């Protein structure tokens, strides 16, 4: 009730990346991939724990992952990992104040220096790298 009155956008504001340019998309992807990777990490740890039950259990697990669905998930994980890492490095440097532009007298029409082409380029490169990695990963996985 109080939240409705406060007119906060709520989870939609976090979850809708379509406004405010590519930086907002990057923010959203970073979150999503972070969560995805965490989910995978948890899964992965359970997955690998089968090894303590011997070869049979391990092979059964492997069989389970080596299905098309398993490959798709793994491909996604590769993409998520690459994007999250590459973009994470950009974000980290940004958070340290690196590459976010230099203060100066802004000129009308104001263009924010922090939303500069280098940042944008890095975001696109992260997306591109992730796509490449996914293609490569998919070719290896499905290639077998």
């Amino acid at each position, binding site marked *: 009730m109080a939240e409705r009155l406060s007119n906060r956008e709520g*989870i939609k504001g*976090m979850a809708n990346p379509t406004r405010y340019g590519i930086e907002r998309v990057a923010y959203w992807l970073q*979150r999503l991939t*972070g*969560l995805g*990777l*965490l989910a995978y*990490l*948890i899964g992965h*740890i*359970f997955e*690998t*724990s089968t*090894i*303590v*039950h*011997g*070869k049979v259990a*391990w*092979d059964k697990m*492997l069989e389970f992952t080596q299905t098309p669905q398993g490959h798709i998930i793994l491909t996604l994980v590769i993409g998520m*990992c690459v994007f999250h*890492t590459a973009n*994470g*490095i950009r974000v*980290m440097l940004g*958070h340290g104040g690196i590459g976010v532009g230099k203060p100066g007298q802004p000129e009308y029409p104001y263009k924010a220096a922090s939303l500069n082409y280098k940042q944008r380029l890095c975001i696109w490169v992260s997306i591109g790298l992730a796509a490449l990695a996914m293609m490569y990963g998919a070719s*290896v*996985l499905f290639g*077998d």
Partner: protein
Amino acid sequence: MRESIIMKIHYGTALGAVVLVAVHILMRMTQNFGQSLQYQNVIANYHFLPYALMLESILILLSVHGFNGLRVILLELKQGSSYEKMVNYGSIASMAILIAYGSRTILMAGMGMS
């Protein structure tokens, strides 16, 4: 803990992970991917102490990083002191559980208990 220290840990774990995960994945690439997952090879890996240690550090780094990331998202989603306390302790507990569970695998596989 001051938020800046937590976040420095968050960035630190991320940086550490970059290097180690790269090694971890490259190991899968040294051989044919399918082969690298063969039971014997995996067990061999676990028996190789430096590699086991690396796996252990990846485990710690990523659990800390990942659950702190989750903590951040949850803190931003909803506020209130008891909720926030729950989130803070909850994420520490989750980290601990995941690390314990993963370590069990590494330890047992490494010691050849299976």
